[in-house]
Each structure stands twice: as structure tokens, then as C-alpha cells.
């Protein structure tokens, strides 16, 4: 399968004819010769804009040959326009501009910002993860997120394993994950941050604590919004293939075409991923058992952890036409197969347990500015999803970490006490039909004053069946449906020449869970199945504020506050077998008062040295905090977990990010530290740190760029990355020997990528966890050691 795909890809490259377009690139410098960052470069005739980076560099690709007016505007420079001619593949235009005084801050400030900077200075506590560089390297989307300040991705194993996201100490369902603003659960576990390649992603926005109105959902810890590539302006085709340790293979392909006359736009992307994940584990939970029960510490290769995924997305529609700025129909299909090596702990390795999931999703996006009347903008996003999950666990023998059956004291292979690897033998299907709608209307009352109304609707219908359960049991199994509505009303104001931006909002949440409990009743001597329907309706209101104030162009104060709440999710109420989560019908909604205050400073230059810094403090005051607690109450105990309410917690912390640029060297350091304490006077854990949360992390990375290595016009980038996680307790249990405390983690990666002079081919090499240290996201669940990956990227921008 994978080889076929490669051949198809390669044959693609050789048959595509190149059209007559070229790229414009260059450096913008001021009258002192210093590079100008964040300047907007506009091709007037094509209405295409790019922003300069910290080195003053810009690039506009796929420009049809011809004469154009290039306009350069920036907060700190005067507007300048020059006429240029594009008649070859690469046109270099370096521009000198004149600086202006700070007080002449004008509308250009907004234009001059990159999308990243624009979002990051909007008032919300948000970080934008740029996927451009990462998409060329051997990086998973989750790894990219894990390096972002205040974000902790917690995976249970290698490529494709379950992941949970922790933002400033809040995790689980408190964190919303969105794809283009639609809740990720709509897409199912076959299309998520585990397998969406960075190359399909335009950017990732990470909102901490306070979510803007357009991401409607009852998430009180913030959210992660994955914005898939749009790029409606240029035609392109990109393909990549990578191979690495543990037989890990990834291939992806994406392309886009727009007919400038009709506005017809086609976009497609596909991905394939595979890994054996047979990495070695040697943590303290890795033990083999002899027939007489005596345990011995061992090392073993994971033997039931394979992962396979493929999927694709096709979009067709019209952009920039009279009746729509964007009208796109899309189809998204995806599949994953994942073997499950162990439960919550590594103590018992599983054989043969696996899950499969697939999803077919159709969606419609519509955006129209000046809808009906001038200044009124309509956005609509509708998705219907048909998700299927299958979980099989039928192997009844027990295995040691050497992959061989355990032999009992009578010389026979051991049978599992529960029937299969994690519990009773199971061949379970969970099917869900999900509808998710999001609509927004915004109206500019006056310059700088905007009203926005958003509504989000989400409904799920779920059917469960287990082929190994008797018909009787299945007839009387409980089922449930869930519907949520979130309405948001926002008022946005820009004042003081755009130096002050404010955003005030009110959110109304409504949730309806319908639980169908079949019962047996004797009617005329006959046992009859009747359904008892219980409904649970909850509604609540939250509100918040976000604002930013630019004291100087390069010093922006940012603050936000919200009374956020979230309803217990479907999984938290009813459980999810494939992630070992048990139901808890009594779970209450969680509320939190969130507050963020910080600043972004920079960049400041000192000769060729440039520094920028952002610091932000946060407070989360939570009631009925929903946490996952490892559960061992049932009689037939296996490592499982359930969601519970903790009476109250308070989390106080800060995060900081420092960027340093010197010539071709780019260094980034970030840290996040917080205390999440139980606030419950009657609990003995009052004022104690909640276990199993990594509360102090440091990430650092450095990139060094070398031009003209081996070949002229080529670029070599060298990368170094480290991630530090302070030890943390994983249970409440006191121990003398810190038995349940994680080790100190300091994981280091290196990498290099080489851009060939043609600018079409990039080869990347990455070595991860180079010192082969024990790595854990969840304790007792070891992550891969040293690993190597090689990736080849091919991009065609000109057709």
C-alpha cells in the first residue's frame, strides 16, 4: 500500500507541466540598514500581502509574469511603493524605507502585523504555532504543540497513541480542540492531532483560559484551534515522505488550484502514516514474571503497539466571487488502526487488543462580507459526521515483556483472569452520528466598534454493540444522546488609534442528555422490554473580557478574564471503553474564574542582537473541577480511570517566552510553572498540589541557518531542542522512596534540513531523544527512546 502511494507521488512530479509564474522575495531595511520586521508587503494589483520576518525577509510566491506595484507599509516606516516586473522564476526586490516616529501610529499597524502577531496581541492569552518550518521536518503536530509555552501534550506511547492536552494546569475535557473552529470530536479519533500532518495545517492557535467567541464551546481551560491550510491565492502541490526508527513511515500530499476568472477553487490533501512503535522500554514498571510469581526487572520491545492511519480531505467551491467570499464544500475521510500495548500502567503488557476507527465527514463553509447590508458579515460552518469505532480484545493468554506467554506453575500458559487482556473479551462497536453547526454574524456599528453573535450547535447520537455480549444484555444496555448549544454575544472595540483593543462577551450554554434505560416489565404474563427515558438538562451563563493596550509599538499589555464553565462531556458521563474511561453519571459541571495578565515586549535591537520577550501570569479558580482519577473500585479490577469532581482547586502560575536572534541564529526559550492546589477546607489535601500534573516545564530550541552550503542558493538549517519536565507526584499516596514520583526529564533532539537551490526539494533529518533517556508523559507509560527520521519534501508552486 505505502509503496504504491510513493510511486503515484513520484509519477506526479514528472508529469506536471510548469506554468509561467515566479516568486518575489527580498529584504526590507530602514535608513540605518537595519531589517524591518513585521512590515506588510502588498502587490497592489493582485491584492496579495506578505509580512516580513525578524530578519526583514519576505516572499510572495506564484506570481503570474507581469508588471506590479509593490507597496511596503509598517508601523515604524513611511509608506513606500515601487513598480516591479516579474519575468523570471525568482525576482529579488530589496527595499529601503524611511523610519517614522512612534506617535504616528496608524491603521497600518494592523496591516503590518503578521497573522501570528495580530492574533497574539488581540488581548487573549494566545500563542500561535507556526507550522511552516515544522512541516518540512520530521515533527508530529503533537510534538510541535509540546514545545509551545504552557502546553503539555501527554501521550501514552509512541506515534498514534492517545493524547491529552494540558494548558496551564488544566486538562482533559476542560480543553477544547477545534479544527477550523469545529470541535474535533466531530472528526473522530481517526482525524486528530496525532495524525494530521503539520503540512496540512496553516497554523495552530492555543488559547489559555479565555476562549474567543468564535470558538464556541463550554471549555474552561482554553482551547487549541487547528487552522487547516487555506491559501486560496496560489496554486501549489506539495508532497513529502519520511522514514525512521520503529519502521515509522509518513507520506502526505496536498495540492490546490484556483481559476482566477471563475473563482472555482479545488483543494485536496491526503496522508498516510504507519509505525510498529516497537521501541524498547525499561522503566521500573517493566517486569517479567516467573511461574512462581517472582518478578524480575527487564527490558522489552513493545510488541502490540502498531499504528496505521490514512485519510484525505477534498474541497471544492468558489472563493472571492460576488455571492461569497468563500463557499466550500468539503469531504473528509479517515481511518486509524491502533494496537493497545497496555492499560494505564505498563505492568501488564497486552497482546492482540486493538481499536479501529473511521470517519466520513461532509461539511460546508460559507463566508460573506457585506451580507445584506454593508458592514454585516456572515460566517457559517456546518459538519455532519459518521464516526465508527471498533474495539477488539479477544486474546485470553497473558504475556511477558519478551512477547512470550507467561507459563504458570503447572507448566501451562496463563489465561487472563478476566477473559481477555483488559477485561472481559470484547468485540465492541461504537457508532456515532454527529452534527455540528456554527454560525456567526458580525456587524460594524461604526469604525472600531463591532458586534458579533455566534451560535454553536452540537448533537451526537451514539449506538453501542458488543458481539460478545448476549442479545439479552445488549437489549437492555443503556444508551444516550447528547445535544449542546452555545450562544455568544460579543462587543469588540478598537480605540486610541488601535492601541487599545477590547472584547467583552457573554456565553449561554445549554446541554441536553437523553438516557434510555430499557427495563423488563411483566405485561399479561409476558416479559416485555420497555424504555425508561431520563433527560438531563443543564444550562448556565458565562462572561468574559479580553483587552490589549500598546504602550509602545513594541510593548503591548494583554489581559483577559472569564467566568468559564463546561458541562460534563459525553465521555465523562457515559465513559469510553477504548480509552479505559468508566462512566460517571453523577458528574457535575465545572466552573472556573480565569484571569490572565501579561505583556509582549520586542523586539528590541542592540546591533545585530534582537530580543523579544513575553510574560504572562494566570489564575484559575475552579469549582467542581473534573479530573480523571485512576479507578479501582469495581470487583473485576483492571487499570481504568474515571472522571470525578474535586470540590475546588486554585491554580496560579506564569509562563514566559524569550526569543533571541543574532544574524542567522534564532534561539527560543520558554518556561511554564504553576501550582494547582486543592481548595477544600474539609479535605486533608487542602492546599496540597494535585498529583499527576507536570507543573514545571522548560523548553528550548535553537536554529542556525547557513546559506550556500555545498551548492549556491541552498539553505541548511540546523536545529537543537530540549524539553525539561520537573519531577512530579503521580498519586496522593505518600511514599518514603518517592516510588510514584516521575524522574527528572531532560530530553534533547537535534535536526537538520537542507533546501536545494531549486527551492523545490527539502531533505530533513531528525534525531530525537539523542541520549536515550527514560521519557514519560504519563508515569508508568514510557515513551520512545533514541530515534532517527529522514524526510523528503517536494513542492511545486508554479502551475
Amino acid at each position, binding site marked *: 500500500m505505502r509503496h504504491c502511494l510513493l510511486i503515484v507521488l513520484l509519477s506526479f512530479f514528472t508529469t506536471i507541466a510548469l506554468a509561467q509564474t515566479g516568486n518575489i522575495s527580498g529584504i526590507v531595511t530602514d535608513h540605518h540598514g537595519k531589517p524591518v520586521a513585521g512590515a506588510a508587503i502588498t502587490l497592489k494589483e493582485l491584492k496579495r500581502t506578505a509580512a516580513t520576518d525578524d530578519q526583514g525577509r519576505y516572499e510572495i510566491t506564484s506570481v503570474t509574469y507581469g508588471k506590479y506595484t509593490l507597496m511596503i507599509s509598517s508601523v515604524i516606516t513611511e509608506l513606500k511603493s515601487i513598480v516591479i516586473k516579474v519575468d523570471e522564476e525568482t525576482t529579488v526586490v530589496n527595499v529601503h524605507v524611511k523610519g517614522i516616529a512612534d506617535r504616528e501610529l496608524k491603521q497600518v499597524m494592523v496591516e503590518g502585523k503578521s497573522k501570528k502577531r495580530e492574533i497574539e496581541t488581540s488581548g487573549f492569552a494566545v500563542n500561535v504555532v507556526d507550522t511552516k518550518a515544522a512541516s518540512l521536518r520530521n515533527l508530529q503536530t503533537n510534538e510541535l504543540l509540546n514545545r509551545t509555552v504552557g502546553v503539555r501534550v501527554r501521550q501514552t506511547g509512541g506515534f498514534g497513541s492517545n493524547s491529552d492536552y494540558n494548558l496551564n494546569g488544566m486538562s482533559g475535557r476542560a480543553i477544547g480542540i477545534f479544527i477550523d473552529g469545529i470541535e474535533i470530536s466531530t472528526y473522530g479519533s481517526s482525524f486528530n492531532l496525532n495524525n494530521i500532518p503539520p503540512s496540512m495545517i496553516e497554523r495552530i492557535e492555543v488559547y489559555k483560559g479565555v476562549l474567543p467567541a468564535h470558538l464556541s464551546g463550554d471549555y474552561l481551560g482554553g482551547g487549541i484551534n487547528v487552522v487547516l491550510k487555506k491559501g486560496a491565492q496560489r496554486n501549489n502541490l506539495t508532497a513529502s515522505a519520511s522514514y525512521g526508527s520503529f519502521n515509522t513511515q509518513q507520506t502526505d500530499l496536498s495540492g490546490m488550484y484556483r481559476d482566477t476568472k471563475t473563482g472555482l477553487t479545488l483543494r485536496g490533501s491526503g496522508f498516510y502514516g504507519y509505525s510498529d512503535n516497537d521501541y524498547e522500554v525499561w522503566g521500573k*514498571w517493566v*517486569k517479567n*514474571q516467573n*511461574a*512462581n*510469581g*517472582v*518478578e524480575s526487572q527487564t527490558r522489552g520491545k513493545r510488541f502490540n503497539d502498531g499504528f496505521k492511519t490514512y485519510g484525505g480531505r477534498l474541497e471544492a467551491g468558489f472563493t472571492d466571487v460576488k455571492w461569497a467570499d468563500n463557499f466550500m464544500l468539503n469531504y473528509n475521510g479517515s481511518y486509524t488502526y491502533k494496537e493497545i500495548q497496555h492499560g*494505564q*500502567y*505498563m*505492568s*501488564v503488557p497486552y497482546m492482540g487488543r486493538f481499536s479501529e476507527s473511521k470517519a466520513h465527514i461532509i461539511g460546508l463553509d460559507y463566508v460573506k462580507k457585506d451580507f445584506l447590508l454593508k458592514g454585516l458579515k456572515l460566517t457559517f460552518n456546518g459538519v455532519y459526521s459518521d464516526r465508527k469505532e471498533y474495539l477488539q480484545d479477544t486474546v485470553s493468554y*497473558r504475556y511477558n515483556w519478551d512477547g512470550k506467554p*507467561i507459563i*504458570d*506453575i*503447572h507448566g501451562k500458559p*496463563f489465561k*487472563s*483472569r*478476566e*477473559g481477555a487482556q483488559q477485561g*472481559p473479551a470484547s468485540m465492541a462497536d461504537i457508532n456515532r452520528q454527529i452534527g455540528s453547526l456554527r454560525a456567526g454574524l458580525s456587524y460594524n456599528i461604526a469604525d472600531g466598534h463591532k458586534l458579533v453573535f455566534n451560535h454553536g450547535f452540537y448533537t451526537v447520537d451514539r449506538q453501542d454493540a458488543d458481539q460478545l455480549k*448476549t*442479545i*439479552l*444484555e445488549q*437489549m*437492555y444496555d443503556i444508551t444516550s444522546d447528547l445535544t449542546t448549544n452555545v450562544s455568544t454575544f460579543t462587543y469588540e472595540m478598537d480605540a486610541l488609534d488601535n492601541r487599545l483593543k477590547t472584547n467583552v462577551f457573554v456565553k449561554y450554554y445549554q446541554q441536553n442528555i437523553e438516557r434510555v434505560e*430499557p*427495563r*423488563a416489565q411483566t405485561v399479561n404474563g409476558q*416479559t416485555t422490554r420497555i424504555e425508561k427515558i431520563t433527560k438531563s438538562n443543564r444550562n448556565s451563563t458565562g462572561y468574559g473580557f479580553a483587552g490589549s493596550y500598546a504602550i509602545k509599538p513594541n510593548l503591548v499589555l494583554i489581559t483577559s478574564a472569564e467566568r468559564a464553565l463546561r458541562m460534563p462531556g459525553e465521555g465523562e458521563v457515559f465513559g469510553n471503553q477504548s480509552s479505559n474511561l468508566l462512566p460517571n453519571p453523577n458528574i457535575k459541571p465545572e466552573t472556573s474564574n480565569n484571569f490572565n495578565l501579561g505583556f509582549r515586549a520586542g523586539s528590541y535591537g542592540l546591533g545585530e542582537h534582537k530580543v523579544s520577550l513575553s510574560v504572562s501570569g494566570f489564575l484559575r479558580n475552579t469549582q467542581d473541577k473534573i479530573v480523571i*482519577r*485512576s479507578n*479501582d473500585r469495581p*470487583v*473485576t*479490577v*483492571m*487499570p481504568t480511570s474515571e472522571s*470525578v469532581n*474535586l470540590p475546588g482547586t486554585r491554580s496560579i502560575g506564569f509562563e514566559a517566552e524569550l526569543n533571541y536572534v543574532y544574524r542567522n541564529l534564532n534561539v527560543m526559550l520558554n518556561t511554564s510553572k504553576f501550582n494547582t492546589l486543592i481548595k477544600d477546607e*474539609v*479535605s*486533608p489535601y487542602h492546599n496540597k498540589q494535585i498529583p499527576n500534573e507536570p507543573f514545571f516545564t522548560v523548553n528550548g530550541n535553537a536554529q542556525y541557518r547557513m546559506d550556500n552550503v555545498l551548492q549556491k542558493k541552498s539553505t541548511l538549517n540546523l536545529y537543537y531542542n530540549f524539553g525539561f519536565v520537573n519531577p512530579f507526584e503521580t*498519586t*496522593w*499516596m*505518600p*511514599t*518514603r522512596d518517592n*516510588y510514584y514520583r516521575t524522574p527528572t526529564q531532560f530530553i534533547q533532539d537535534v535536526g537538520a534540513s537542507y533546501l536545494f537551490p531549486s527551492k523545490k526539494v527539502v531533505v530533513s533529518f531528525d534525531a530525537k531523544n539523542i541520549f536515550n533517556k527514560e521519557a514519560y508523559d504519563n508515569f*508508568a507509560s514510557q515513551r520512545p527512546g533514541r530515534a532517527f527520521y529522514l524526510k523528503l519534501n517536494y513542492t511545486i508552486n508554479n502551475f
Partner: protein
Amino acid sequence: MFGAVATAMTITSCSKDKENPAPEENLGDADRWVTVSGALMGTTAGDGNGGTMVYSVSVNDAKNPDKSIDVYTNGFPVRSQRTARLQSSIDGSVLFNIAYTGPNGGEFSKYKVNGGSSYTELSDKVNIANYATASPRWVKLFDNDQTGVAVNVSGVKITTEADGKTYKYARGTSTVLSLNLQAAGIKTYEQYEIPLSAEEEAKGFYIGRLDGPVLNKAGDKLIIGASRSKYDPATGQSDNTGKVKISSKSLVVDYPSLKNPKLISSTVSQGNTNGYRSFNAFLSEDGNIYQATQNGLNGSHILKINQSNEYDNSYVFSLDAALGVTGTYVDAWRYAGKGIGYVVYSVADKGGYIARIDLNAKTATKVAIPDDVDLSFGQYQGFVVNGDEVFVAVTPVGKDGNIYIMNSRTGALTKGAKLINKTGNHYIGIF
């Protein structure tokens, strides 16, 4: 056998006592350690799911009401995700533990008691999780600390008639395993599917738990307590209403082979016979086994199993009748010798009380520990029998309490060391 100096005191008295001499006073071992254990709360007060702390003192300190013991501040944490299931050697010098659930669930470990919070974890680890799951129920046999027996029921499955809709029966796999306490390792194990009678199975009953194994006088049979769980045959879903009950049962297997499982039934009670986290049956000097019941129709009973390993249905000892109350429930008990035992119990699911019972006279007398609404022996695990004296830890949830010393010969009650408590926690045993 107790590795101790038993001091006999001669009582010289007037002549009328000579026909009926007072039994000799036995002060037991004055030099042994007494370990006190306390359960930390998990998420709710008194749930005991936060782990277990232990602390050891001398017998004299345990008996001294001027001494205070605070296991939560000064104790040693025993490794177990939930309440550890502790047992101790007869002389109190070694603690045995099987971790209950968590990443090391099913792991057997031994700790040498050195006094105070000093416990030394001994040698190899044995894990019985594969044999008896990560949450095995176990006790040691009274065979000079040679053997522990762990039992478990797992993989309960419903079987229907061919149509798939008509309930036939539910059965699980029962595991009985013997563990060498001295050179840690599994001796042997057996597994079986134990059917109830066809009539009982048709009502939805099955063996849900096994616990509280005890060795008979001949040393050739193990008697294992059992609880019965129930499905609703109409729906195949669990039926926890408890409206219908069937007779009390025990599982009898050969020892030491653990083969030939057989169920025995009592007509006296409909209760379960597995107890909870502790011993539930004892061999008396008269050769019979006395077993407590829980959750029967008319409170708890003490049942008698004779030397033929059958219930003696002529022996009827109702705790409700003996105490003159309704709804007694024995949380744990301990046989002290010479026909005398101490039971800790609740009445109508409320309170925590202690009674001194006489197995021969079938009488029970309430022991005068202070009443407290927050006192419960629901998770109580351990008593120390040292000579005539029986040690028990009494702390209401979240409140301070004391060790009490009950003299099985005289019936006297004395207050021992103070037990310092913390919010949500309670002391659960003396070893």
C-alpha cells in the same frame, strides 16, 4: 509457639475457689511490636482510598493511655494504591502486604518491623496479579506463618439459551492460590467454575466473591467464604436490590492441593460468608470452624462448620437475638480462644460497636467503648491477640480515638494509647 515468654501467675486464694480454679492469666509476649495502621482518605472522608500508613510501638506503649500515636504524621507508608491488605506474623515482627490495585496491584511484599516508623522491605517481590488479578483478597493461615491464601472470582459471564435472549446462568472463574510466606513464592493454584444449584442460578445468582479462607482441624481442607451476586434474569443487568436471598454458602477445597471444589450450604442464614478485608472464620479448640455472616435476612449469624466440613445446622447463634437489636452486621471479628471472640459490627447500617461473644453459650455482650456517630468498622482489618488480651483501634472518621485492650478471660476493658487522627482518615487495624 508465640516465641514469647508466657508468664503464669499462681493465684492463692480461699478454699471455695479450689473446686473451680480461675483460669491462668496469660499476659502473652511483653516484648513484641504492635503495629497500628491507618487509612488515608481518597476523595471522600472515610473511603480509605488514599493509601495506608503504619507505625509500631511496644506492647507497653500500646497499653499506656498517656502515650499518643500519630501514624499520619509519623508513620511509614505501605505501598498500595488503596487500603493495603495487611497481615502480620504471630509475633508481630513481620508485616505481610498484598498491594490492592494500582501499578503494583497484586504485589506481595514483606516488611520487617523495627519499631516506630522503621520498616525494612524484605527481599524478592512476588506478584500474584496474573493468578488472582491486581485486587486479590487474601489472609494467612494459622499454620505458624507458613502460608497465605489468596482468592478471587473474575470473568463473570452470562450464558443464555440458544435464542440469546433467555437467561440461563452466570458463572465466573474462581481462583484459589497458596503463597509461601517464608520464601516468597507461589506454592500452587487451582481454578474452577463453581455452579450454584440450577434453581439458584435460574434466579440470577452466582458466586461473586470469595474471601476469608480458613484451614480445618485435620489440615486437609480449606473452607472459603463466599458472597452471592445476582443478575436480573429478565434483563441480564445487575440486580442489587437484595430482595431475594438464598442460603449461606462456603467453598471447600482439598489442602494443600486446592483441588476438588465443593459448595456447602447452611439453612441457618442467608448471609454472605466472605467478610471484608479481614478474617471471617476461625478454627476453635473444639475442632469446629466458626464463621460470621453478613447481609443475611435477620442480621449476622455465627455459623458452625463441623469436622466433617459441613454446616452444623443445629447450631443457631443469631447476633440480633443475642444483642436484642435488629440488623446487626459483622464488619470483622477475632476469635480469642476458649470459646470467646470479639466482633465489631454495625446495626441497621449505622454506627460502630464491639461485642464480646461466647460461642458456646451463644451470648453476646456489648463492650463499653464510647459511642460516636462517626465511628465505623466498615474497613476494619486487624486485631492483635496477645495472651488474654485483644487489642483494637477505635477512631471515628476524622476524630482522635484510642487503642482498647479487651481481656478475653475477664471481659475487662482498658483504654490504651491515644490515636491521633486527621480529617477524613480512620485507623483500621492493629497487627
